[in-house]
């Protein structure tokens, strides 16, 4: 009687492998669903940006409908900002696939384009909105930098809530090995070593913690 029951060791192993495999499979499905959702949002944002650029090209370089372009730019910026929050939440919960890192990179390119476009609009239209670019450390930051970045994010969220349409808030990773982001950082004298950095209107560089009121004074 005893000997025959020892089969339970490998039988339990088979059942465990099956159940565990099913669990992993469902986990991958869940994470893929999240990746697809982010990807869907990304594609919508990408289309919106292309649409904005096409609109500019069709209207011709001599004529820019500043009012419409600024409004569209702000809508686009707000959209990308809110999608960044969704992405961050999903990234925090990703355990198996690591695919959201790629989505993050795609978004960073989109944000670099948004930044470039915002600079261009500010120059051509003499617009009174402010570019607030938050460049952070993404690839394994230290505990100190994580804490600092957490506080920076909160300050900027407070600022955005307060000033709304006055500012285009663009959070982006500065160490994702993207040539477009690196070029923008080089142009405005931001190095990876000093991240996180808040860059206001491409002129004021903030690396030390300050209150949202103090940052607001630079606007």
């Amino acid at each position, binding site marked *: 009687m005893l000997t025959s029951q020892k089969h339970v060791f490998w*039988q339990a192993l088979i059942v465990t492998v099956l159940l565990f495999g099913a669990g992993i499979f469902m986990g991958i499905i869940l994470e893929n669903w999240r990746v697809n959702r982010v990807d869907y949002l990304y594609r919508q944002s990408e289309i919106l940006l292309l649409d904005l650029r096409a609109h500019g090209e069709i209207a011709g370089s001599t004529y820019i409908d500043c009012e419409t372009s600024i409004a569209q730019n702000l809508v686009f910026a707000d959209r990308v900002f809110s999608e960044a929050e969704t992405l961050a939440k999903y990234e925090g919960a990703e355990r198996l696939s690591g695919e959201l890192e790629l989505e993050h990179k795609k978004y960073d390119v989109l944000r670099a384009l948004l930044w470039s476009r915002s600079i261009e609009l500010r120059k051509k239209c003499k617009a009174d909105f402010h570019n607030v670019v938050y460049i952070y450390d993404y690839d394994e930051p230290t505990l100190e930098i994580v804490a600092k970045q957490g*506080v920076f994010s909160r300050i900027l969220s407070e600022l955005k809530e307060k000033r709304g349409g006055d500012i285009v808030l663009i959070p982006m990773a500065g160490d994702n090995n993207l040539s477009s982001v690196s070029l923008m950082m080089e142009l405005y004298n931001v190095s990876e070593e000093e991240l996180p950095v808040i860059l206001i209107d491409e002129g004021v560089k903030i690396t030390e913690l300050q209150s949202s009121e103090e940052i607001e004074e630079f606007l």
Partner: protein
Amino acid sequence: MRLLPYVYLAYMFLSLYFLMMFLMIYLRNMKKMFSYPETKKKYSVSFLVPAWNEQDTIENSIKDIENIDYEINEIIVINDKSSDKTPEILKRLAKNYPNLRIINNEKNLGKAESLNRGLKFAKSELIAVVDADSYPVADSIKKMVGFFDDEKVGVVTCPVLVRNRDKFIGKLQAIEYQIISFSRKLLDYVDAIYVTPGPLALYRKRALEDVGGFDKRNMTEDIEVTWNLAHNRWRRRMCLSTGVFSTAPEKFRGWFRQRIRWNIGGLQCIYKYRKSLFKEGIFGWFIIPLFILSTFLGLVGLAIFSYLLTRRTISNFLYTKYSIVANTSLIVLEDFYITPSILNYFGVILFIFGLILTLIMLSILKEKVFVRENLLNIPFFMLIYLSFYPIIMLISIGDMIVGKRTWR
């Protein structure tokens, strides 16, 4: 740290495996869990009761043994140089019970050596070892002896039930003891019982002599002798339909010290039988690896928990510090919004699964051994009580390294 999710998954896999294993054994044997072999053979039984300063419990313990509904050849109490009133109580009891024999040690020898002394005097075929603070149920021996019809059986054990359950720590130990008893019965079906606890174990004298008795160098002679029996191919069996009431520690300190002693005993066993690893059937392929694995997993788990706790503490400290510098809010509503990961889902499912299995075990035992549990104590037992195990293990290893091996 990308490694951690895989470590968690490994833990979850192992937990699921053991849950599955126990569940499958239970499902196959659920109708005969409480059965025991009836025998026509009349076995002679001697009781060995080692006693050291047991004035509060020894009298009732002896009386309960005398009340057992099986013919007892003799009760040998080994007084291990008690300094309280134990000797006087024993002298008085000896006048009333003619089968009570008292052996007085000239110096304190410890439990294992006391038992070995008693074993030399014992004349019976079967030897029942009972702690002096334990109280066997009247039908215990009657239900346990039938297992010895199998000539390969060296020892039979039964559930240990907590007698003092008034305090919260007693209630938690009562839950723990019941789970241990039930899982031990399940392990019986795969011949993997690895301890026959001190409160009551019925040995075949020949088996004890074959393994050289109890090892005085081990802090838990009951674990060691079971391993020794397994090492020498003697079967260990569990009778779930009876029991023995025992006095559990009533204070955290006493409980903690008891657990450290158990752990050190287990570690000593691993060391002593290390050469049997992956040899000798179930002993080398399951019992020893199970002990090593649980030690390893406990320690690694504790290390990961400490790492994460330290990280979180430093992180919170820095975050608070910077928030004060930046004059911003410390907590906002979004902080309470959690996006669950697959590991969270796995953890919850495993916990629920474990909880259900525990409730099944307790509900089955409740019917049979008339013990009731407060349902709210069970999650506390699973989440808090069991969390102490790795800490105890770590301290035990430390104590073992520095040579603290005394238990009294």
